[in-house]
């Protein structure tokens, strides 16, 4: 499901943003550079630029989210767009309306962009494939498949902290890889940006069967997996997606895979610790680590706004010359 013909227009420019898969180094770098220039907008007295004035953007969330939805909303507002938040669990799908009918009704209101989060993999692709020619679709997370703006804000954070030379970095992604759309997008992005070494660290039950084909080195032991790494990305244990016995207990998970100050000693001395949030304190990591000097977890949230502004404005540009 690369969706590349869908994501790019005939000039190779971003039209929808659905997955990292298939986007090249140049385009990812352009997203990061554009985000860098938006970061300054947040520091102005008036935290707003008129780039998307008069455009209507709908946050179409079929699944609960606080951080992602609010940062998308803030990003859209800082670009001067009008934003509509639709929480589908309280809306017409409950009354039996299909996804396509919801889409057609919103299009009848002349919406320019859909930000879509859905529990089913491929939902954003489906909407992009069926949306009117002038609309853009941004994937804000679909099932286990992809969460490309989260991956890009993580890349932005890594570049800000460690510099642009991804080739010299060792990055370990730790935790529930199996259920994580974030991990899949991160691995794609890290590899596209030519990261020196990408590792995934997880118990066998939280890795997909084809883990080796993900494009990362697989470790089942935390200490070995984070040895000498420059960046550790912890993932949330997605209890809501687990049906069955993936883990003996959260306590045991923390013993083996939870990040503590002591275990951090195995990593590079200036290691950076990241987490896409929300954190289960005492499950994925100690509070001491989450709130410690190596953590950039709150910077990730701030960077999410600039990265989402970049992706939204890039997808909305050039609409008038390439209407389809």
């Amino acid at each position, binding site marked *: 499901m690369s969706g590349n013909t869908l994501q790019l227009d005939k000039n190779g420019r971003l039209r929808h943003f659905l997955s990292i898969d298939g986007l090249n180094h140049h385009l990812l770098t352009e997203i990061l*550079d*554009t985000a860098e*220039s938006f970061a300054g907008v947040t520091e*102005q007295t*008036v935290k707003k*630029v008129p*780039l998307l004035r008069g455009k209507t953007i709908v946050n179409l969330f079929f699944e609960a989210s606080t951080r992602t939805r609010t940062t998308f909303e803030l990003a859209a507002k800082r670009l001067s767009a009008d934003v509509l938040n639709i929480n589908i669990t309280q809306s017409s799908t409950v009354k039996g309306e299909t996804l396509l009918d919801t889409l057609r009704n919103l299009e009848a209101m002349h919406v320019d962009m859909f930000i879509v989060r859905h529990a089913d993999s491929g939902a954003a692709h489906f909407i992009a494939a069926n949306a009117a020619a002038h609309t853009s679709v941004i994937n804000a997370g679909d099932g286990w498949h992809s969460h490309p703006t989260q991956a890009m804000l993580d890349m932005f954070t890594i570049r800000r902290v460690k510099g642009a030379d991804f080739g010299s970095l060792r990055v370990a992604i730790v935790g529930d890889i199996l259920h994580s759309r974030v991990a899949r997008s991160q691995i794609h992005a890290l590899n596209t940006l030519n990261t020196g070494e990408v590792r995934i660290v997880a118990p066998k039950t939280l890795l997909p069967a084809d883990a080796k084909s993900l494009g990362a080195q697989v470790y089942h032991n935390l200490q070995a997996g984070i040895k000498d790494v420059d960046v550790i990305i912890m993932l949330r244990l997605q209890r809501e997606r687990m049906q069955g016995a993936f883990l003996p207990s959260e306590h045991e998970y923390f013993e083996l895979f939870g990040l503590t100050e002591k275990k951090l000693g195995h990593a590079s001395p200036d290691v950076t610790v990241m987490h896409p949030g929300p954190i289960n304190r005492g499950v994925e990591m100690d509070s001491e680590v989450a709130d410690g000097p190596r953590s950039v977890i709150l910077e990730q949230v701030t960077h999410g706004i600039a990265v989402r502004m970049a992706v939204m404005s890039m997808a909305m540009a050039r609409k008038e010359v390439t209407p389809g």
Partner: protein
Amino acid sequence: MNEFGNISGIIADMAEQLSEEIARTGKSNPAMVGIHTGGVWVAEQLHQLLNIKEPLGSLDISFYRDDFTRIGMNPVVRPSQLPCSIDNRHIILVDDVLHTGRTIRAALNELFDYGRPASIMLVTLIERSGRELPIQANIVGRHVELRPGEHIKLSGPDPLTLEIKRTA
């Protein structure tokens, strides 16, 4: 082909006119802001000649353009930098070429997002034909009449050169 002669000489004349204008209107202690990229080059020289104490500010108006959906994003937008609060300050806005007036419109909008200046003066190295908005400069280095399809471009920063180009 430099039919405009010594650009720094033109800027020196502009500096003289500008300081007379500042004295005449009583707009003392002004702050100077250049528009990326050419406007900043011109402003750098004016800023030095006028001995303005506060550092030069710069504006990148890319996010304020009105043709964004037609020509797309420029990924290398340099962040605008205003070294001081512009509230109640007299601002000297500097650009290289005043053409349609749309760049100045965007720059004015951006300036007002930073605060409420006491006044804004517009200084431009070249004033050419083709205005599409009711905008005019207070101080002009050279007036140029161009035929349709002709453009004037400042290159720099060292040395500054002006060139008239024809696009087919």
